[in-house]
């Protein structure tokens, strides 16, 4: 069985992180293919439901990335996301899911390199944690 390849779903905010990911692209910075990116207008749009749904639907890890504090295009979306994800992580622990599977990062439009590093790191970390296996009682 070849090595475990974690499946990551990434929610990137359009103005900073998505632009950062694009910059990584234009700069040809390579990073693993495990992540599939969903574009949302602001990290504040991401509901805990999306994260839980992602884990349920087989994502081994969920990456949420927004603008740095003070740089959000809509002023305070990233603060709201930060609060929701912190609460969610506590809750995940209760449900027996390793909170490290959910990661909240700040990547600005000019941090192409950093985005790639975050993805690479997250993949390595998930490899250590291993695949997610949620027994969903019907």
């Amino acid at each position, binding site marked *: 069985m070849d090595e475990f390849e974690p499946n990551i779903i990434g929610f990137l905010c359009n*103005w900073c992180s998505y632009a950062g990911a694009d910059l990584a692209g234009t700069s040809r910075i390579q990073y693993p293919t495990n992540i599939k990116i969903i574009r949302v207008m602001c990290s504040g749009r991401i509901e805990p439901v999306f994260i839980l749904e992602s884990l349920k639907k087989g*994502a081994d890890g969920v990456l949420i990335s927004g603008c740095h504090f003070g740089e959000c295009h809509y002023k305070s979306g990233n603060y709201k996301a930060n609060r929701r994800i912190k609460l969610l992580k506590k809750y995940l622990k209760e449900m027996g899911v390793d909170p490290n599977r959910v990661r909240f990062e700040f990547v600005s439009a000019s941090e192409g390199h950093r985005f790639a590093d975050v993805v690479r790191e997250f993949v390595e970390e998930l490899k250590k944690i291993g695949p997610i296996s949620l027994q969903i009682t019907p």
Partner: protein
Amino acid sequence: MVKLSINGQEVEVKEGQTILEAANSIGIEIPTLCYHKALSPYGACRLCVVEINHNGNIMYHTSCQFPVMEGIEVQTNTERVLKGRKIMVELMLARCPESEKIQELAEQFGVKETRFKKKDEDCILCGLCARICQERMGVGTIDFINRGIERDIKPPFETHSEICRVCGACASVCPTGARTLELKELSLREPNPILSEFNEGLAKRHPIYIPFPQSVPKIPVIDREKCIHFLLDECETCSIFCEAEAIKYDQEDEIIELDIGAIVVASGFDSFDPTAETKYGYGEFPNVITGMEFERLVSASGPTEGHIEVNGKEPTNIVFIQCVGSRDKDGNEYCSRVCCMYTAKQAHMVRDKFPDSELTIYFTDVRAFGKGFEEFYNRVQGENIIYLRRELDDTIQVVQNGNGVVVKAEGHPDIEADLVVLATGLIPREDSKELAQTLNINLSADGFFLEAHPKLRPVDTFTDGIFLAGSCQSPKDIPDTVAQASSAASRVCNILSQKELEIEATIAYVDETLCRACGFCVDACPYQAIELVRIQYLGHTTDVARVNEALCKGCGTCAAACLNGAIRQLGYTDGQILTIIKAFGEN
């Protein structure tokens, strides 16, 4: 009102005014020295004595003090008065023979030299300094002492005063300039001058000032952190001098609300402060100055009217060092684009002023990329200006050498110099971070404002309707700045010319049947675009959330906050995202 005649001219003035004020009001000049419009008249210099005929008896009094009286006839320059004034000036010249100002005064009155015994005083005892200190500054550090020929003006016990605020008011009104040198004698406290920002701190300025003579609008401002009136509730000299009564101390900050269609940000740059780079010795040696300071020194309207002097001597060998604060791997990595050319220009200016001086320029790569730049660079090289190349990471050190300095550059012989000009680069303005937050635009890594796209939208920002021009976007010279400004202008007109604008459709939408007015979305909205309203629904009144479509920017935070999905972000509904999640879940 009081009617009187001065030199035969009828004049009517308010009671309580003095003859001098009445004369000035009809354009008759009377010489004065110890008179100061903002101080009580003192009558020390006697220059303003005039002849007063008060129904028959002739009197001679100082016009700065004598109150106007009904029907008096005043003659301001009879032969006897003029002769007397000449003697007054001759006496002053005898008292202060070395004072330039008194020599000028003497010339004005046709007094060649004095027939009286010359003393070597530098103070004419006009009392202006004592009076301004007491009456305007409310301190009273110095005052007259003794009487008769022993008369002098000194702080108590003729030693340093403990209450002198070192505000320099006495120095500013001293007609002979005597008091200017004595500030140190008045107090042990260090005088700290108010440095003119426009002149890069090379000259002093008043708390009420215009930055430079050609300022537009030519209206001064009062710097309230430095003005004695605001700090100590004293002085008010400026309002006394202002004929137009335009000075309003109680004026308050005014908040102006503007409806604006589009914005151009042209906030410019700051020049790099090399103090931190101790190797250059800036701030330590007076011989080391920045490019901008050099510009002020060589400028005709500058503090030294274009005359370049270091430690009181014209410099003979000058060294320019390029790339100070630019192209620095662990600092500002970008190139400031203008330093190579302005250094060449400055070197050329020095060659003009001091034809036989030695000029050396330490460069790395001369970037003469613009139109006419290369030609200018060649011309400058032809003017016996030595260009020495050094690598950016080669060491360079400026060390003291008597009252000159020595520039030690790796790979080059030491060069003695009495002036070192650092070609300081351009850095983002200190307040650019704050402005970016206010305007909600982004900063690039180097701290300048981030353009939407370096090639395709160089003057746009990510926020529609806000455009960039000039060095606030990145260092550039004047031609590029002007070009960018015009392009930003056209981008603005592009918007303003349209009657209407389309805005993003992906805004929030409320399904009023589901909304139970919990208000979570109202708090979540960063733009206060949602409010709870009372509506009639199926016969009964209820509260629901309502979105102000003009204000909603479509960030979707409200949708995430809503518990039962009553409010949705069009284009990014929960359903749509969940379907993508499902697709991405299966591997």
